[in-house]
């Protein structure tokens, strides 16, 4: 060993800790650890950071994982970035380990962005139907009719998608959707025009109806009595008030019927969504991602 060899050896000895240090820093950012960390973030529902980490991994040479691509798309979907998610799921629909899942997610994207007409169009075309998940997609298809104003399919056809225990609950929702207990605004207005307050009572507001009847009646009587007693000013004043109350009551009755109908729709949608949420919309959960 000459002296140059020895100097080289000493250099190596001296800087070995620093080199090791660089390696150890890199170890937290090694592909394996990045993946572990990204999976952790994904399961913690920190999707933005998880997606960033997965994308960093995909940029590394030699890494081209369908799982990563699917998780990225799923992350975008969970963040509500449906356009970005849709594009990514689309690229995974053929010749891919996750093609069935990607197709299911495309259906879910349409459904959960309330784009029910596109959803149904996609379902009818069948080109993207996921073989593994035909049943959940069919259930979503029929459920979509309960959530918008499209004409309901026949009950027999509808119920075929919900065999078993779920059927009885869904049948109740179907009946509520088909025969909602609506009140006619026109009928409410006409009733109030005939007897003040009757339209409000018809629309379910008995208290308001009775108040309207009493107030209009009393003011009408006072107006009539004043006119009869030649107290013109008071007579016309109360007459004006009666006209105002009467017109307001007719209009208010029609509005009340509309409010009643909106309440029925709201209650129906809330009850249905609560039920569907409890049953995860009859959709599968990818348990292999976050156990």
């Amino acid at each position, binding site marked *: 060993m000459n002296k140059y060899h020895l100097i080289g050896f000493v250099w190596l000895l001296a800087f070995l800790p620093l080199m090791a*240090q660089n390696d150890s*820093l890199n170890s937290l950012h090694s592909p394996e650890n990045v993946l572990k*960390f990204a999976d952790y973030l994904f399961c913690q529902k920190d999707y933005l950071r998880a997606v960033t980490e997965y994308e960093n991994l995909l940029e590394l040479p030699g890494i081209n994982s369908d799982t990563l691509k699917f998780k990225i798309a799923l992350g975008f979907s969970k963040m509500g970035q449906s356009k970005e998610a849709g594009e990514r799921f689309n690229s995974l629909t053929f010749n891919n380990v996750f093609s069935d899942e990607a197709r299911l997610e495309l259906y879910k994207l349409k459904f959960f962005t309330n784009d029910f007409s596109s959803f149904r169009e996609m379902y009818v075309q069948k080109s993207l139907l996921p073989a593994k998940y035909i049943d959940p997609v069919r259930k979503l298809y029929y459920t979509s009719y309960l959530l918008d104003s499209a004409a309901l399919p026949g009950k027999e056809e509808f119920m075929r998608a919900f065999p078993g225990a779920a059927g009885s609950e869904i049948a109740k929702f179907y009946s509520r959707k088909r025969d909602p207990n609506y009140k006619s605004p026109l009928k409410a207005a006409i009733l109030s025009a005939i007897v003040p307050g009757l339209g409000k009572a018809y629309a379910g507001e008995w208290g308001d109806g009775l108040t309207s009847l009493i107030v209009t009646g009393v003011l009408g009587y006072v107006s009539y*009595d004043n006119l009869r007693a030649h107290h013109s000013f008071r007579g016309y004043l109360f007459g004006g008030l009666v006209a105002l109350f009467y017109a307001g009551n007719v209009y208010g009755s029609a509005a009340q019927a509309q409010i009643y109908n909106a309440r029925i729709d709201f209650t129906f949608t809330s009850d249905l969504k609560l039920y569907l949420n409890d049953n995860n919309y009859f959709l599968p959960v990818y348990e292999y991602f976050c156990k």
Partner: protein
Amino acid sequence: MNIFANRALFFLFFCLLTVPGTVLKAQTPLERQFQLAQGLIAKENYFDAITELKRLLFFDQKKEYAFRCNYLIGYSYKKGAKLDDAVKYFSLSQLAAPDDSALFLAKTELVRSNILRRTADNALLILKQMEKEPRFTQRLKEINYWKGWAYIFDDDWAKASEEFLKSGSADELSGFCREVEKAKYSVSFAKVISYILPGSGQFYTGNYVSGIMSMAWTGFLGYLTYNSFAEERAFDGLVEAGLFFRFHRGNVQNAEKFAIERNSQISKDALIYLQNNYKGLKP
């Protein structure tokens, strides 16, 4: 050959072995990761800082960095106005606080984040608990200071003024809060004078047109009522009295609403003023 015979070579050998070991002391990967995150915070790159701190937390199996990481994640979230997340991480940092001083720091930040996200009730609850803890008796003035701010955001400027006074270091703030309290309208007074003279509550709050309208309507209906009774038309009088009382009640409610609106505006203006002009420590 004996290389140590050469003094220059020996010196080189000594330096090479000692310098990296002392000055350039080898750091653990977690230390380096922490430095990386601190660097990102210094550059105000809070999103990446949070990512790196979370990475450190994930790999820190001994939880050596639990307090520092959670605290800095909370701090970064707060800087990004993600106050719910900030509260979550400051809460976690309290659990991992290594000593009383760190615990006080975490609790204070928790309070400040609660104040900013308008959950002043929570902030006050934490501060009242801190006040009772013997380990924080030396820091009561700081607690009073943050109680003052919590009361400001709770729209209780009088109490805020008292707390700032107790803190002993915020006379300017205490005076300002007193001025704001003085500038506010008394809701009860607006209601009472409107009971006595319809429309006067509206005048008191500076809503003159509304005041005149209230006065005119109640006056007119009062006159009609009186006139009906004077003419011995009792039923007319009763109906008109009903209308009079309905208008009178509306007038009182209206005065109350105006006073509340005015006070809300005064509080908002005061907060904006403090945000732009107060140089001391703010939530």
